[in-house]
């Protein structure tokens, strides 16, 4: 009798545990998804449609999307790192990966999910390399971009093929009412492309030092060229001169003749200044080629989520990096990373500049993947601005930059 009772108890316990598992597997999971998709471009509408489609095939997973502006997205993760209030999925700037990884909040995706390799294979390798820190992947590419040259057709008659030509044309077309060339900022995002294209670099390849790189002869010559252009009124931008027009407005009103920017600029110009006659070509080449800066966003996951939420989040990420979702997002300006989506006819139709960007993506490079890169960009911006304004000699300013960056590398 005792044995029977024991047997019944054990059996019922087993059944209850199994039953719990069954319940757990089908129990609805709500995942929090933070992102900075652009509502103005219609991306959030598309996102909502995609979430609805995802729910059709995954009825037990509810995706709660939360829009946060770029800085707010970063600040919320910083605050959440202390409180543990973090989302299950985040789609944010590629530069966030090393920064958040340094906060010890990101999931090592290639270790946790065995099928990460397959998902990563479906996307372009270069954009996905931005999700790598050390030997592990802490994200997967969501969308990619780089920068190309936009020029005002009424002001520029000869399209420059080299950077030297571009600077010469900038100087030539400048007058009391026109500034030949504009850069929105002076950080690495804006200067790397010139330094790389002339054959220089920001840091040593092993990230051990900045000496001899950011203050090397090539970087100094590039910044000197910009300083010379600024001195004759052929170069400006809203951070070098806070009184200057923002880059889009300056291009749109014919104040700036040329600028180098990402795919969003085409949309901004067409929307805000539909009458503007502008052209776009791959960034002119330097002696080392046309080496642009790789931009874009990655999907990331957080350690604070439990296993059920992480699994649901991973399913959602795979859906968002899949061909179908990537094509839909391409229609609202997001350049796909999914290889199949990139070759899709529909995508080629909705992104007229895609071929230019695709060529540029072949030769572009990612910025250094290091947690302190944000600080380093700040240093480069400050010192390069001082040099361009003529407050310090370029060499002195960049020597100071190298010293400050070296301190950050330690």
């Amino acid at each position, binding site marked *: 009798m005792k044995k029977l009772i024991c047997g019944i108890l054990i059996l019922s316990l087993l059944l209850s545990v199994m039953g719990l598992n069954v319940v757990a597997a089908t129990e609805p999971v709500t995942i929090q998804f933070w992102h900075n998709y652009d509502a103005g471009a219609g991306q959030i509408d598309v996102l909502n449609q995609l979430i609805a489609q995802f729910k059709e095939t995954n009825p037990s997973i509810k995706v709660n999307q939360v829009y946060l502006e770029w800085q707010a997205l970063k600040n919320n993760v910083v605050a959440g790192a202390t409180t543990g209030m973090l989302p299950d999925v985040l789609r944010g700037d590629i530069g966030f990966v090393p920064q958040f990884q340094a906060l010890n909040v990101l999931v090592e995706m290639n270790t946790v999910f065995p099928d990460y390799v397959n998902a990563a294979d479906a996307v372009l390798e270069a954009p996905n390399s931005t999700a790598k820190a050390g030997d592990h992947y802490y994200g997967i590419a969501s969308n990619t971009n780089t920068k190309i040259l936009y020029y005002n057709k009424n002001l520029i008659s000869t399209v420059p093929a080299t950077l030297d030509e571009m600077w010469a044309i900038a100087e030539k077309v400048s007058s009391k009412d026109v500034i030949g060339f504009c850069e929105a900022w002076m950080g690495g995002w804006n200067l790397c492309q010139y330094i790389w294209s002339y054959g220089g670099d920001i840091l040593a390849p092993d990230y051990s030092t900045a000496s001899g790189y950011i203050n090397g002869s090539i970087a100094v010559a590039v910044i000197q060229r910009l300083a010379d252009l600024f001195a004759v009124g052929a170069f400006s931008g*809203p951070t070098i001169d806070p009184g200057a027009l923002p880059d889009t407005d300056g291009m749109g009103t014919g104040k700036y003749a040329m600028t180098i920017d990402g795919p969003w600029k085409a949309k901004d110009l067409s929307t805000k200044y539909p009458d503007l006659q502008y052209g776009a070509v791959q960034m002119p080449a330097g002696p080392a080629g046309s080496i642009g800066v790789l931009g874009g966003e990655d999907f990331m996951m957080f350690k604070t989520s439990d296993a059920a939420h992480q699994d649901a989040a991973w399913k959602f990420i795979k859906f968002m990096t899949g061909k179908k979702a990537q094509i839909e997002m391409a229609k609202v300006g997001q350049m796909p990373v999914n290889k199949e989506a990139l070759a899709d006819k529909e995508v080629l139709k909705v992104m007229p500049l895609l071929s230019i960007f695709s060529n540029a993506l072949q030769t572009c490079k990612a910025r250094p993947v290091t947690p302190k890169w944000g600080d380093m960009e700040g240093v480069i911006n400050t010192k390069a601005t001082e040099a361009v304004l003529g407050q310090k000699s370029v060499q002195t300013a960049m020597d100071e930059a190298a010293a400050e960056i070296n301190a950050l590398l330690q």
Partner: protein
Amino acid sequence: MVPHAFFRTKKYFRKKDNVRMLLLLVPGLVVMGMFTFYPIIKMFVMSFFDWKIGYNQVSPFIGIENYLTVFSDPIAGMALANTLFYAVVTVPMQIILGLLVALLINDIKKFSVSFRLLYYLPVITSWVVVALLFRYIFSNQGLLNYLLTDVFKWIPEHIGWLSTRWPAMTAMTLLGIWKGIGWNMVIFLAALQAVPKEYYEASSIDGASSIQKFFYITIPNIKGTILFCIVMLVIGAFNTYTPIAVITGGNPAHQTDVVLTWTYYQTFSSYRMGYAAAFSFIIAAIVAVIAIILFKVLRPERM
């Protein structure tokens, strides 16, 4: 001594009113403690650590290193100099103009309310909106340059009002002054109305001029209000953030940053929480010293 203190406390709590009073104070004290005293103490502690904000990360104790870093940081010095410039220009100007407007409005019989409303309007408008308006006025292609070069043709080329440090700081101080006159006017109007009319009548009989009345009757009677305004405006000047963030964003190269914009940059762009905490404490100490000096110089007890 201890038993004596104990009995005194016991006696205190025996009084029903005292208990009731304490109970009424508790919610306020709890809120103050949680949202004012605790953050201040926590921030003071943070200023001695290389404070890590990451998940489960250890913050090493580094002593006064954050303070030393602040003292050797040229941008922190520049931000402090800009803030002091903002305070030195905006505080006296707001007080002088606010008092002037209050005196004028105090003397008029008709449209007094309309004028008060007009002068007070800038105070209730949004900082962001007016800062954006000022940016459009002072930008290279802005209204001011348009008037000077294209309409009146007084200057041949546009002036970069916001392009360099001091002109940009001047433009931002103008905004601070314009926005603050109304607040000062209201405070001074209240103070002026409290000055007994008999003093003016008596001085009129003695043959005092308007200027003499102002310096010998008005000013001594509103001295306390002036001190109050100075202290509040100095604290306000050290708290200025929005106009700088909107108009120049600290550009170019942090040359127009003030203490709060620099603290924000260090906290949320560089995650240097310890540095930002130390800088905040240094600023708090400076404001406290200024307030003490003001109280000593103006001596409110003599007012």
